[in-house]
């Protein structure tokens, strides 16, 4: 068949398919002009055959290009991402997230150890030798810490603090903490070094702050403040570090895959954890902004804090265990 007859024969089909595509690609379609799309899939399959034939028979480049682009557009619409969000979020929270965390427990364990050991080491050092704090933390940060948690300053702060302050701090925690978690994850790609450094740094800083504030006698305001939101916040940072390490390890030791494939698998594997990290940090920012600064009896704050830690780890260890998909 010559090209002219080929074009003449199939052009109506191409035009019909183009009209369907225009409708699928536009974001709003008025009901009056709506076409039925019953034949879209069959039309697309026919078009694929026509493109293959045009190439095989050596029809002109322009015609091949025209058909290629039409196939491309139709392919995009046929395999379009179709979210059914509410359902997915539900299953994700109920089982997906804790399963994803447990699936990668090795990485999270390494990340948690890096954090906890560096924290314990610096904490003990600062506690034993109070002047050590000056080698770990710079002076401005120390003054800042002290002014935040000294008992005499605490009283002033709480009286002044209003709802507006809460909202401002909420925004600050979201922007700062979630940004840190995302960057920790991404920097894990640099052979895991980045994620590990972030864990060690944050662990040491937290240990230094805790040790120092105990030394100056400000432990009560400090621990009553951090205990509740610390559960989701510290956990989320550790999980982001673990997910980052998973990426880095895929590049260092890809196993039976090529490095590229290993990285792809690792990213796919780590992504659910990052969704969870995001959710945990939103929760943490909410608690930190609206609950932690409330001036309540230490027993209440400690028991609420303990409940936060307990519930979170019960959820991570046992959530989604009896589901059909095993973690």
């Amino acid at each position, binding site marked *: 068949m010559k090209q002219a007859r080929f074009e003449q024969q199939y052009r109506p089909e191409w035009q019909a398919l183009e009209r369907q595509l225009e409708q699928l690609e536009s974001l709003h379609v008025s009901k009056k002009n709506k076409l039925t799309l019953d034949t879209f899939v069959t039309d697309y399959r026919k078009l694929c055959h026509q493109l293959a034939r045009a190439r095989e028979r050596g029809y002109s480049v322009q015609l091949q290009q*025209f058909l290629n682009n039409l196939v491309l557009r139709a392919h995009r619409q046929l*395999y379009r991402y179709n979210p059914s969000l509410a359902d997915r979020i539900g299953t994700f929270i109920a089982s997906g997230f804790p399963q994803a965390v447990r699936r990668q427990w090795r990485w999270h364990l390494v990340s948690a150890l890096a954090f906890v050991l560096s924290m314990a080491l610096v904490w003990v050092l600062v506690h034993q030798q109070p002047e050590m704090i000056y080698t770990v933390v710079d002076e401005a940060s120390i003054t800042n810490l002290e002014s935040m948690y000294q008992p005499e300053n605490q009283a002033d702060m709480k009286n002044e603090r209003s709802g507006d302050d809460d909202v401002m701090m909420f925004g600050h925690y979201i922007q700062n903490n979630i940004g840190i978690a995302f960057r920790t994850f991404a920097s894990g790609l640099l052979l895991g070094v980045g994620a590990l450094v972030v864990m060690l740094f944050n662990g040491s800083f937290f240990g230094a702050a805790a040790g120092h504030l105990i030394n100056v006698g400000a432990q009560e305001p400090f621990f009553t403040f951090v205990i509740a939101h610390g559960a989701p916040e510290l956990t989320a940072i550790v999980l982001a570090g673990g997910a980052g390490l998973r990426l880095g390890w895929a590049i260092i030791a890809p196993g039976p895959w090529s490095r590229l494939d290993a990285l*792809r698998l690792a990213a796919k594997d780590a992504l659910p954890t990052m969704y969870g990290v995001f959710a945990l940090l939103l929760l943490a920012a909410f608690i930190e902004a609206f609950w932690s600064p409330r001036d309540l009896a230490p027993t209440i704050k400690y028991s609420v804090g303990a409940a936060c830690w307990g519930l979170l780890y019960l959820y991570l260890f046992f959530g989604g265990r009896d589901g059909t998909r095993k973690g």
Partner: protein
Amino acid sequence: MLIDERLEVETPEGAMLSLSLAGPVPRALAYAIDLAIRLVIYGALAAVFAALGKAGMGLLLIMAFVLEWFYPTLFEAFRHGQTPGKKAMGLVVVHANGSPLSFNGSLIRNLLRTADAFPLFYLLGFICTLISPRYQRLGDMAANTLVVHIEETPQIQEQAQGDTLAPDWSLSRDDQLALLAFHERHDRFSEARQQELAQLAYPELAPALALQRLNAVSRYLVQGPT
């Protein structure tokens, strides 16, 4: 049609798709446009929220977070793989098999931006796009995505009428493609250049005659005997 850097992908239907990969320069330009848009949005929001005091400050920080991390993800996931900057540059993000970008794919490639931006000005990402045979930065490799050009779809021309002549040699597929390309594009050349080209096929004929003969043969290839 761009000739450079084409990638052939096979669809599940067995058709071969041909994609045109985008290099670092158009991508950097698209990024610059997006950055400018984000700065303008941020500036406008800052002006509005400044009136709301400290609560406004908090909202502004949340918006800054969303603009930094979710601007590219949301646009790419819900606007057919295009941020406004990519749209302006005629680029689109797709999965490596040519299928449209999913939300997860978009999130992975954008979360890993930090690694690509290491240490400064996307240096690592730039080096990766130069090394990678498919122009992928680290985020693209992890998400298995490509940035490709959107190509203009040529209009199919109405066929010119005229006498036709069967070729007097056994025609190979390459000959046919060359002649058809000449047929479609001859009106972009001057008459003299067309004659010159035609003489490559018929060196023994006078230029005008050679062109007439060549046109007749290429019309035959399109339409068949009349």
